[in-house]
Structure formats: structure tokens, C-alpha cells
């Protein structure tokens, strides 16, 4: 019987993948591309060599860190759509601290920079958390609005206080970070940097926090049923604010790592939309910190394929975003199907009725 349940789930997921591929095919044909080549590029190019796998892993790092933060906030019952803004704040803070600590040993400077990113992101997450807990302001509204504020603040920072003094053309960007604040690469010529250690460690930490500690227990209880949590003596507002601080801190750290490991300087568009993709990754991973790891890998593949599609085919790279949209819709549908015991039971009876007939 349990075997049956497993197969049922696998079958549903396979069906969902086929539907996703089908929707993708329709779009590829509509823009005049070749379906087989396009999919082949998306799925095979990342595994071509060490360099390409590293490209995928590099994209996975910020996705994963943000998704871990989303796990915490969503499990506590608050929707953080503001990771994008919190990430910008993390970049600004890390960048400023990086220049301030120039010349210090790396062992001191790097943790300080990442801490600065976490604090800035955490404070920026605190604001909507506090508003929600004390004044019942919808977090959907406040986080989205704060994203705009953060974007403009960030642009101001890289145009004025952090502007590269050597930059004469007026391109808004900071100077290159000093070496004391740069995350080193593992392999020469491949992009993978030390940030992945932080990402994996955070996954384990968030797992322990959520499932092994009383704090995580209280956050999950507050998120699953705030009335029951209040009845049980849990200070729901307090844990809501804490969850938003953790969520913001994660997004802030994702910003620090992206700055210190990949870009090397603060420039416009540094977040590459990770703040929003991270939410999808968290959902794709079922809001479970460990499952977020493979989920982030899958999205890393998708994001990397944008580059390849541009170089190798006539298909516009924006196709990947369309595919992302299709995947989100399909994840939601799959969850509905898998979690609906009635549908499952109906299939089970059909399945066994047929098996019986065939046995006869």
C-alpha cells in the first residue's frame, strides 16, 4: 500500500514535468525555435565540464540563502516578498564595511562584511515584521513597497557615497572591493566561490532551528495556527518579528556573498532578481531547508541556460522566465493534487479494479 502511495506521487510529478515541457514546447515553437535543441541546451550544457557546473553552483548560492530565509518566514506565517530589497541593503552594508576594513586580515574582514550584510538585511526585514505584528499592516504591501525604497537607496549609494573615485564616465558603480573582502574561488577559471560553504552551513542551521529547537517549534506553531499558538502561551508577535529578521538577514547575506564572491563591486542590477526567484525555490523545496538545496540546483540550471540560449540559439533567453512561470503554476497544482486524499483514493480504486480485472 505504501509502495502504491510512492508510485502515485512519482506519477503525479512525472505528469507535471511532462506538462511543463509541453507548455515550454508550445512557447518555443511560437517564437520559431527548435524544441529538441532548446531543451538539449538547457539540460546538457550545465554538465559539459567543470566550469559549467561551477556556473550553476554559483547561481545556486544566493538562491539557496534567500530561499532558506523564506522557509523561516513562511513557516512562521508571514510572506516575505521583500527579499529583493533586503538583499540590496545587504550589498550596501557589506560594500561599505569592505572598504572600511581594507587591509585587515581576511579572517576578520570577511566575517565582518557578511555580518554587516546580515544586520542590514535583518533590520530591513524587521520593519515589515514589526508593522505586521503591532499594527497588522499587510506584509505583502509593506515588503513590496520597501523593495522600491531599497532599490532607489541602493542606486543613490552607488552614485554618490560609494561611487568609484576612478570612474570618469559616470557609470554608477563602486570601486573594486579590496582583496581582504573578496571570497576566493575554488578552481582557477571557474566561478565557484567560498560562499557555497556558508550556504550549505546555513541550510543545516536553519534545519536545526526549525525542527530541533523550541524557537523553531514556536515559529512553526505560530505560522500554522496563530490562535492555537496564542492559546498555548506563545508570543506570536514576537516570533513573527524574529522570523522576519532572520528572513531579512538571510537575504542580506545573499547580497554580501554575491557582491564579495561574484561581482567584486556594487553595480546596478546586482540582485539579478534573485530575491524573487528565491521565493520560488523555497516553494519548490516544499519550505524544507534541506530540500531547498536540490531545488536551488534545478533553478541554477535554468538561470545558467539563459546564457547558453543567447549564445547558441535564436531562442530569446527570456524564455527561461516564461518556463519559470509555468513551473510555479505546475508546482502549485501538483501540491493540490498530491495533498488531496480524495483524488488519490479515486485513482487507487481505479488502479486496483483494473489490476483485479487483468488478473482474472
Amino acid at each position, binding site marked *: 500500500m505504501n509502495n502504491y502511495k510512492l508510485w502515485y506521487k512519482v506519477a503525479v510529478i512525472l505528469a507535471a514535468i511532462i506538462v511543463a515541457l509541453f507548455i515550454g514546447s508550445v512557447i518555443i515553437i511560437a517564437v520559431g525555435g527548435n524544441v529538441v535543441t532548446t531543451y538539449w541546451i538547457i539540460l546538457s550544457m550545465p554538465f559539459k565540464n567543470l566550469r559549467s557546473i561551477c556556473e550553476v553552483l554559483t547561481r545556486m548560492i544566493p538562491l539557496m540563502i534567500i530561499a532558506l530565509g523564506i522557509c523561516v518566514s513562511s513557516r512562521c506565517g508571514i510572506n516575505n516578498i521583500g527579499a529583493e530589497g533586503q538583499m540590496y541593503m545587504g550589498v550596501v552594508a557589506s560594500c561599505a564595511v569592505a572598504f572600511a576594513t581594507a587591509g585587515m586580515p581576511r579572517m576578520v574582514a570577511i566575517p565582518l562584511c557578511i555580518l554587516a550584510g546580515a544586520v542590514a538585511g535583518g533590520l530591513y526585514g524587521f520593519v515589515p515584521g514589526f508593522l505586521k505584528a503591532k499594527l497588522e499592516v499587510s506584509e505583502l504591501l509593506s515588503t513590496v513597497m520597501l523593495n522600491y525604497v531599497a532599490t532607489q537607496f541602493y542606486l543613490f549609494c552607488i552614485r554618490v557615497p560609494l561611487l568609484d573615485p576612478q570612474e570618469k564616465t559616470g557609470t554608477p558603480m563602486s570601486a573594486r572591493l579590496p582583496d581582504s573582502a573578496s571570497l576566493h574561488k575554488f578552481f582557477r577559471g571557474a566561478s565557484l566561490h567560498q560562499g557555497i560553504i556558508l550556504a550549505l552551513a546555513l541550510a543545516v542551521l536553519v534545519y536545526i532551528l526549525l525542527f530541533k*529547537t*523550541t524557537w523553531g*517549534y514556536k515559529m512553526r*506553531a505560530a505560522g500554522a495556527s496563530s*490562535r*492555537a*499558538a496564542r*492559546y498555548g502561551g506563545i508570543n506570536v508577535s514576537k516570533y513573527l518579528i524574529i522570523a522576519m529578521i532572520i528572513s531579512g538577514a538571510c537575504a542580506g547575506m545573499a547580497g554580501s556573498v554575491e557582491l564579495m564572491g561574484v561581482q567584486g563591486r556594487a553595480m546596478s542590477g546586482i540582485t539579478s532578481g534573485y530575491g524573487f526567484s528565491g521565493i520560488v525555490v523555497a516553494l519548490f523545496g516544499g519550505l524544507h531547508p534541506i530540500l531547498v538545496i536540490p531545488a536551488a540546483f534545478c533553478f541554477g540550471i535554468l538561470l545558467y541556460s539563459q546564457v547558453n540560449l543567447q549564445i547558441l540559439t535564436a531562442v530569446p533567453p527570456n524564455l527561461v522566465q516564461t518556463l519559470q512561470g509555468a513551473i510555479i503554476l505546475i508546482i502549485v497544482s501538483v501540491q493540490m493534487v498530491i495533498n488531496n486524499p480524495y483524488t*488519490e483514493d479515486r485513482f487507487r480504486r481505479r488502479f486496483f479494479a483494473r489490476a483485479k480485472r487483468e488478473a482474472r
Partner: protein
Amino acid sequence: MGRFNEIKELRVENIVKRFPGVLATDHVSLTVGEHEILALVGENGAGKTTLMNIIMGLYQSDEGSMYINGEEVRFRSPNDAFDCGIGMVHQQYMLVPNMTVLENIALGMKECQKFAKVDLASVRKKVTEISTKYGLKVDPDAYIWQLAVGEQQRVELVKTLCLGAKFLILDEPTSALTPQETDELIALLSRMSKELSIIFISHKLNEVKALSQKVCILRHGAVVFEGNTKDYTPKEIAALMTGHEVETSANTEEPCEGKPALEIRDLCVKSDRDFLALDHFNLDVRQGEIVGLAGVSGNGQRELAQAINGLRRVESGSIRFFGTEISNMTPRQVIDLGMGYIPEERNIEGIVPSMSIKENMLLKDNETERFSKNHILKNKVIEKYTDDMREKFDIRSPNMFIAAGSLSGGNIQKVILAREIDRNPKFLVCVYPIRGLDMGAAEFIHKQLLALRNRGVGILLISEELEEIMNLSDRIAVICKGQNQKVLMRDEASTARLGILMAGVKEDE
């Protein structure tokens, strides 16, 4: 209108309906004749409501067939059932609160809706016609939210009859009524049975006895008994319903003279809609006694329980708990003083429905040394403890890891009871503890409460089941419109006397 001018006979045969892992109805057959009242009784989860939903076309049966006047019918939706003259009044009323009675009735009447316009005049004519015919008094222009529960039920009845129902299905119609309203309803229904056939779902056996001609008992989805009501006593029916002899536990101890545990003085608390739900309310409960608080729900009971437990702001007055003033403390502080609380809405407040049984056991005590150290949960201890509790409180579940919300009402209540009793409270506030539970589970819970009382714990038992209150309490208080009407000793109380007090009549005047 309608397919049948009259329903001489409704017959279902071999109805089978499966839900995941459960056989909800198991080859059920029954017949109802013209002008007959059939009482369908059975414990919770016996399949009564499922069977009725199949008859109404809300569910499709997996096997079996249905006949009206010997002609086979198949209902794909409630509309098909209405067309054949069958109507149902659900346990939860399906009325829109911010619309008038007339508008609510018009919702279902397609022939009165032309294009985008509703012909309210013809609806009004129909409503007047029906209410004079059956003696059902309703004010067509009142808003639903202004009406008491009993009046809302009459609206539901009128609505169903306006749709042309000649065959009525009533799902636990008396569960929210006062004793007087219940008597009125029973009189009304027996009058109506001269024109209609009725299936009446209930587990209150005295009503079954008073109203029905035939009784049909379901257990685990199957019909275990059918017979004429007048040939059997309520006790015999109860035994058939549960499958064993039922003994109701009762409080027979002498009233005790314990120290005061809870003293409430001039308590004023606002409701969600900002009026005074408790208006200078006074009550004392001593250690080792059960004080029953009787009253029609919505008279301040919910607000009282919440105010005691720190879940609602106290406007004025005082609540002293073993001498400590606890009004406007946080829930945590009240819990730490030794207060136990079995809340009204067990499914969403008493447990976190999506969490496992194991995790729900920790809801209040996760920070104690017993279950955690330096904020790390002691998983092994918790699992052992949960296993013990499942055994001790007879919580029936495949394992402790399934979501608590997927358990039956009785088992959910046992989870809550296990958690609240095993933490050795000094006092227990207990709100509608057996609402919607079957007799077996209710009996179990009552035994536990009495045992707790005999250990010297004071209990405030808030309930609308007079039988429960009179069986368990040492003293009985009656609440009406947020005020304590009167406190009676157990032997002074009778259903009639409590009913009058519950309706707001003051005896002393």
C-alpha cells in the same frame, strides 16, 4: 414544477460510499413513507450526514440506487434533489448574514430571478403563503445577523419549503437551541408531518422518542437496527447506537468546602463587535468543585473563558486566581500560574491542526526542563511521553506522527485533555467539552473531569447541554446577556428552571 407531485415513498438501496481509508456507508438501505418521520441516529462518524448528502446529490454514491415512488432517480447535484421535492436543512445554516431574510430565500429561487433582476414581490408572496400554512413566523425584512439561532433555523425551513420541498431532511436541528426552542421545534415538526415526510438526524434520544415514528440506527456506516420508535426506551436505543450498555457518569459527591480558587468580580469585557459581552459578571469557583455555567451560546461564555486565560482584554473588574489578580496578564503568565483551558474551538485553537500529535503535546510546555534543554527539544523523551499519553487517554491513531487535525473530534479532544490534565493544573476552564462528540468519547471525557474534581481541582464547566451540566456540576450558574442570573445548588436545578433563567427571566423579581 418538480418531477413528482407527491412523494409516496423514498427508498434507498445498498448505498456504498468510500472515503480514503474509510467505508462511510456500507450497503445502507432504508425506506420512508408519506407523512412519516424517520429518526436517523448514530454516533459521530457513523455515516448519517454522508448518507443524507448522497440523498441530496452533494456526494455521488459508489454503489447503490435510489427510488422515489418506485421510480429510479439519480441526483448529480442538490438542484436535482430540489426538482424532485427533497430539501435539506444543514447543521450549519447556509445563510448570508448581511442580507435580509427575503433576499436569502430569493437566492435559491431561480424562477424569481429574471435576467439580472430579482422579483422580490413574488418571493414575499411565497414566503407569506408558506409561513401561514405551516405556522412558521418569520420577519421577511430582518437581516440574518439580527436573528437568534432559533429564528435563523425557521428561515432555513421556510427557504427549503419555498423551493417546493415535500420531503425534508434535518441534520441535528436542535443542537444550537435552548430547551424551550427545542420544544417549539418539535411541536412544529409534528404539525408539519401532516403535509410532509421528514428524516431527522439526532443523537438526543428524548427528541427522537418525542418526534419520530420510525427509528433507524447507523453504526460504522451500516444499518444495525430499524424499528418503531414507540416500542423502545431511550436506553435501549442508546445501547444499540453505541454497541454496548451506556452508563452516564454523574457527580454524586457532597458539595465540598474548598478554598476559593477563582473569584470574578464585576467583570466587564467587550466582544469582537465592541459591545459589552460581559457586563459586571460575578462568579466564584472553589477548589475541588465543578461549577457549571449554563446558557445559550453567544451570551458571553466565549469572552469569559478568553478573559480568564489572558486572551481577551478586560475593561474593568477583577479576576483573582488563588489570590493573584490575573486580568490582562499574558496567556503565558496565566498558564504558568497553573490554569488549564479546554477551548471552545478545539480544531483550530486547542491544537495546531497541521502539526503531529507529538508536536501538539508540547504546545504549552515546550520550554520546560522536561521536554527541552537549552532550547533543544528532547525528541526521545517527547516520543515516549506521547506514547504514554496515547495509551492513558485512549487516543486512537495509527501513530503519533500524523497531523492532529486529521483525527476525529473525540480523539482531538482527548489529545487536548491529555495535555491539559497531565500538566497537573490547579484549575481547569472547560468550554463545550463534548460538543459534537459521540457518547463513548463524551463519557470518557466526563469521567476524566470528575476524577480531576475529586483530586481537588476546581473546574469551570461552560456548556449548553443541560444534561451534562446537571450531571457533573456541584453548583450551577446561569449566564444571560453577560450577567450571572443566579447560582443554584445541583439539587435545586431542573431543566425547566434553568431554561427559564437562560431565557433571561429573573426569578427574584
